[in-house]
């Protein structure tokens, strides 16, 4: 048998995580051996020490955090726009049936469309500036969040809806006091998807659009390192994208989950 999650509880799961990390870290000497055995040019495969050096230099000089901050700022703005549109859409959809039906159909059409496929149209309509990057983020976030939020809204147990009606809670009061907390498992799942999709979409978009703001974000940083053949900087940038992505996913969103749905016994 490969695994049995329930067998040993927390210590076992910690040991499995350590074991997985040991296997992953074996890639470091494997990388070094491969580049030396096959005499690969440092322009293609720089040494681990050089990559680590470029990573920490970028970190300490503040360049990598500054680039990441620009990307995160764009994602924050894009997410705020997308989530606002989703809430308006879900509320309208819940009160005006035709809006709900149209959004359902549009969601079925646009949800599977990758943001990158829209880039040529976005460039044509919005150019390559900040507006274009925001359009890509909003597109990446809006449809999956809409699908999850709609599902969450429809899944609010009837008893809670009746309780709210009994207490004469309507409109915004109902939304903030009952509907949003009741939908929290769906909203947190949507937040995870939104983060993953917007992070990927922005990094890709920046590689196509170039710098979307002064200095550019992480995507632009990686792209420019390749243009200037700074392969160590390129790998340092990729590593930082992975670090930021993992930190948000496994630390920030995990904390949100622990403080809400897990604490309330609502995790699925």
């Amino acid at each position, binding site marked *: 048998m490969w695994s049995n999650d329930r067998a040993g509880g927390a210590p076992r799961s910690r040991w499995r995580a350590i074991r997985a990390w040991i296997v992953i870290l074996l890639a470091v000497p494997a990388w070094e051996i491969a580049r030396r055995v096959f005499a690969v040019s440092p322009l293609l495969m720089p040494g681990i020490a050089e990559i680590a050096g470029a990573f920490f230099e970028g970190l300490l000089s503040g360049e990598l955090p500054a680039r990441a901050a620009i990307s995160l700022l764009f994602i924050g703005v894009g997410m705020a726009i997308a989530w606002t549109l989703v809430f308006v859409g879900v509320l309208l959809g819940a009160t005006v049936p035709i809006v709900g039906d149209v959004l359902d159909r549009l969601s079925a059409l646009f949800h599977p469309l990758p943001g990158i496929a829209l880039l040529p149209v976005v460039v044509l309509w919005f150019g390559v500036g900040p507006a274009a990057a925001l359009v890509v983020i909003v597109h990446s976030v809006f449809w999956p969040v809409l699908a999850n939020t709609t599902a969450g809204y429809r899944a609010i*147990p009837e*008893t*809670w809806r*009746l*309780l709210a*009606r*009994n*207490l*004469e*809670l309507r409109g915004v009061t109902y939304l903030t*006091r*009952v509907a949003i*907390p*009741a939908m*929290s498992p769906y909203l947190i799942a949507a937040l995870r998807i939104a983060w993953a999709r917007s992070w990927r979409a922005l990094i890709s978009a920046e590689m196509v659009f170039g710098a979307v703001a002064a200095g550019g974000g992480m995507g632009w940083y990686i792209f420019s390192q390749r243009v200037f053949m700074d392969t160590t900087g390129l790998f340092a940038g990729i590593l930082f994208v992975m670090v930021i992505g993992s930190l948000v996913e496994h630390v920030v969103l995990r904390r949100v989950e622990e403080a*809400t749905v897990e*604490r*309330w*016994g*609502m995790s699925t």
Partner: protein
Amino acid sequence: MNALELRSIVAGYDGAPVLRDFSLRVPAGETVTLLGPSGCGKTTVLRVAASFLVPVRGSVIAAGREVTRPDRHRFMVFQEPSQLLPWKTVMGNVLFALAAIDVHGAVATARAAAMLSRLGLAGSENRFPHQLSGGMKQRVALARAFVLNPAVLLMDEPFASVDAPRRRELQDLLLELVRVERPAVLFVTHDLDEAVRIGGRILVMSREGRIVAEERDPRRDRLAGLLAEQHR
């Protein structure tokens, strides 16, 4: 004066009537127990009484005036222990109801704490519903209902999901609260023993959604016979 009156109600779901020309009166401060087999329309009566379900015909009169929308004066206690809001603590669930009637701050906390204490929940104020047993959850639901001091309490088999000893405790608690607070109660159950225990005026419903008997002085053997007839 009647706290609640259902007049010639015709109601159902998806065009299929469950109640046909159904009438019922719950005088202020009295308890009416609706006893009947599963699926006879007891819950539909409560839904109409709470104005959760709009009747096709007939009217609901509360405190002398016709009502068409739910309000906090006719408060429902549901069967499901999941009726508590899981993101609120025990205290939070009671305060949630008080906030809806604009009672906030220290006054609300004091009222909620006093009610929770009467229901034997002192010390559990900061626990979340998922940390409570089924019986405790229903106690919180009772606290949330009684703290509102509603004119009519609508109870949809509220103790059906707890085991027999806990059910007896909850019934005792309810009877004590009703004796002191004197709300009008419309209590629905399919359990003969529970109907006898809750007492008041017991109405036996047929499978066809009609009241076929009324007992003011409930005798278990007589009610058992009436109920058995409805199961045939």
